[in-house]
């Protein structure tokens, strides 16, 4: 057989692959920082960097969840709509509680939105696993459903947060701890917990096994449906956490909240090094991917090369290029 050959050849390429997939996104990030500085030195000003990184946290937090879903061999297109729906539901819930609970409505709202997110994820997961339907189709459907919900709830307008909650809620986006914006800390916490779950727990191990080869997982006695459903629930919870950080930023939820986030999230995960067909997930790579996307958008604003209206186009191109790189850096 070719055993000897493949052992020897791939020993080298294992080395190369580790470099590429694990470090690739961080190298790209570093290159981007240098390029950004050369284009416009303001890019590296503390204010700008803080702003950009803070903005990247929404996609980053959701991308942590998406890393689980994609690692398990699924896909969730509904995250953007879900984020808008969760944000809207959270605001309505808090506004309803304010007269009786006052500022305590905020923690109650947080608990509530986490439940909403988990429930949305659970719906996605159960329909995918019990219905045995392609995740692409299921979440395409729920993408429409959740988007319609927020449009319905807001009557096509916006759902503003109650005036009395605005001040106490503000710090969740604008506040800092030791100079670090709170959303960044939240995002880091989500990523740390996420990587512990994905890399150090039995669930994480099984999640990657299901994504790598669903048959092997089944024959190994792993409940594929349960693992995938749980991955969707984790995704839902991450979406809810992102919504919590997002609400104080604009103080409202609208039918355009979270538009095209699914594109950015999936792009972040893919450029982070996780294969779209499942298997090993790269949580920190996904975060780097989210920051890369936001850096590029920021650079387009700071430079005059390309109109910033083309941001989505550039992001669309990036995911395609990332897939091409993955395709050609993999051994045949």
């Amino acid at each position, binding site marked *: 057989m070719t055993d000897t050959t493949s052992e020897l050849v791939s020993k080298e390429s294992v080395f190369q692959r580790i470099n590429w997939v694990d470090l690739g996104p961080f190298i790209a990030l570093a290159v981007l920082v240098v390029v950004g500085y050369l284009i416009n030195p303001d890019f590296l000003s503390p204010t700008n960097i803080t702003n950009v990184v803070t903005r990247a946290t929404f996609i980053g937090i959701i991308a942590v969840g998406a890393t689980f879903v994609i690692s398990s061999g699924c896909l969730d297109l509904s995250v953007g709509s879900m984020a808008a729906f969760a944000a809207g539901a959270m605001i309505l819930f808090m506004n309803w509680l304010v007269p009786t609970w006052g500022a305590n409505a905020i923690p109650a709202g947080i608990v509530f939105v986490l439940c909403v997110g988990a429930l949305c994820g659970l719906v996605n997961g159960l329909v995918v696993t019990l219905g045995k339907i392609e995740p692409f189709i299921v979440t395409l459907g729920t993408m429409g459903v959740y988007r319609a919900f927020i449009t319905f709830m807001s009557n096509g307008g916006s759902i503003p947060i109650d005036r009395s909650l605005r001040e106490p809620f503000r710090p969740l986006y604008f506040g800092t701890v030791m100079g670090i914006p709170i959303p960044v800390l939240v995002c880091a916490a989500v990523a740390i917990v996420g990587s512990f779950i994905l890399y150090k727990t*039995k669930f994480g*191990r099984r999640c990657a096994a299901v994504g790598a080869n669903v*048959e092997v997982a089944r024959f190994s006695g792993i409940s594929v449906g349960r693992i995938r459903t749980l991955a969707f629930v984790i995704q839902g919870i991450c979406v809810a956490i992102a919504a919590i950080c997002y609400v104080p930023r604009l103080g409202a939820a609208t039918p355009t909240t979270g538009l095209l986030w699914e594109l950015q999230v999936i792009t972040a995960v893919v450029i982070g090094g996780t294969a779209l067909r499942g298997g090993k997930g790269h949580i920190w790579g996904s975060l780097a991917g989210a920051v890369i996307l936001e850096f590029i958008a920021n650079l387009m604003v700071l430079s005059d090369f390309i109109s910033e209206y083309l941001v989505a186009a550039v992001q669309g191109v990036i995911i395609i290029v990332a897939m091409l790189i993955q395709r050609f850096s993999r051994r045949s």
Partner: protein
Amino acid sequence: MEAALEIRSAPPAETAELLRLTGAGKQYGPVTVLRDVNLSIHGGEIHAIIGENGAGKSTLMRLISGHIQPSFGTINYLGEDMAFHGPADAERRGIVLVHQEILLAEDLTVVENLFLGREVTRHGVIDDRTMEQIAIRQLAALGCTARPWQLVRELSIAQRQMVQIARGLLEEHRIVIFDEPTAVLTASEVDLLLDKIRALRDRGVAVLYISHRLDEVEALADRITVLRDGNMIGTYDAGSVTQQDMARLMVGRELSMLYPHKRGTSAADPLFEVEHLSVPGFVHEASFVARPGEVLGFGGMIGAGRTEIFEGILGLRPAKAAAIRVNGKPVQIRSVADGFEAGIGYLTEDRKGKGLLLRERLAPNLVLSALSWLYRKIYTDERIENAELNGAIRRYDIRVRSKKLEAGQLSGGNQQKLLLAKTMLQDPSIVIIDEPTRGIDIGNKSQIYSFIDELVRQGKACIVISSELQELVGLCDRVLVMKDGRITAELRNGDVTENAVVLAATVGSGAVGSREENARDRHHL
């Protein structure tokens, strides 16, 4: 010991030399995987290439068929020194490799697959009728029962293999290379294929034939080239070497008996009882028991329902049974996990597709089924896994250069040992092994057999599903033969013979009787 076997001179002069390799070899990076091959291939001969896994057989075949370029030496084809630009170039020049792996598009039909990339057209429009006729002829010649417009997805593994072979033979070639063509075929299908190969030879085609089955090689080959560890040991006239010689040349040492001593059927209380199990479309009302201390074999053609019985038992496909009992107690099994719980371990026949995560390292593969009990806390611990891996490597003699390798980088035999270790980690009392030695070399085979022997001697029950007659006969104390989804015969001890198995698998129940008569039905083994 090789000196004892004289290398005979080239075959008679009337057969023209088509291909000559002189000092050919291949190296990857610093490592040479094949060196100094001097080989001459003639039209009208069947030339077998044998060697253990990793001996360089596939590398040699890939050199000849243009998949890779030699690092040293020359390839002379039809009198000219040649460098093929890829397999398509070699194929255009008349050399085709029929791959061991099945490379067909599952969602296309048999005809579409046969003609993929070389569709017959008339005025630029696909000519389905002509292709269909050619396909029907080709399939009939191979005795393949697949229908031309059937989707490949619906075919059995054996039918797929036949379609792949038919594809390789669609056009006339000067040299046809078969890489383990019979690994998934049953005896009667093998017979037809071997006849077809002989017909090719008689038309003047040179056939290169790679196989692990030395009996086939002996029955088929005119000349035999032996490779070992990337070295060419020699080319021998088939008449001058016995199977024992071949095995010894391949391994480079005297092989002790391939099979352990049989234990004889057991009279103990059944450990595992299955009553009236039906798997819709595959198995009809199958009942059997397995007793501790014996190896129970399941024989029959591929597609007779052997694998499906056990996938049904383990909830891997829809099935219903009147009762399934372990140690006399009824059990409900809805998943592989329930099976482990009940003490049943199942090793799939498809170790690459269903058994191991090829791109995952060894330790995570080993403990994948065991996570729930191996770790009492929710998190995993590399030290525990590595300890388990070290134990498995010692216990099952898994040969790895590094423990950081991915499972896909092991040889077939070592993968099979790892899969065995993974299943045995669950400490099952009933071990079901589907095709225990498919595609692995003779040294590893012998080891797997002795592991099976050990575990039944420890009082476990072992069920072996196999397409290899020799394996059933050599290993099993009792054999159940299936035909068309039913168990048609039970053979015990001395009654387990190749003829009896074949007869029960093809004719069905009641046919197992006079062995003299049966002998007529088997010519090649």
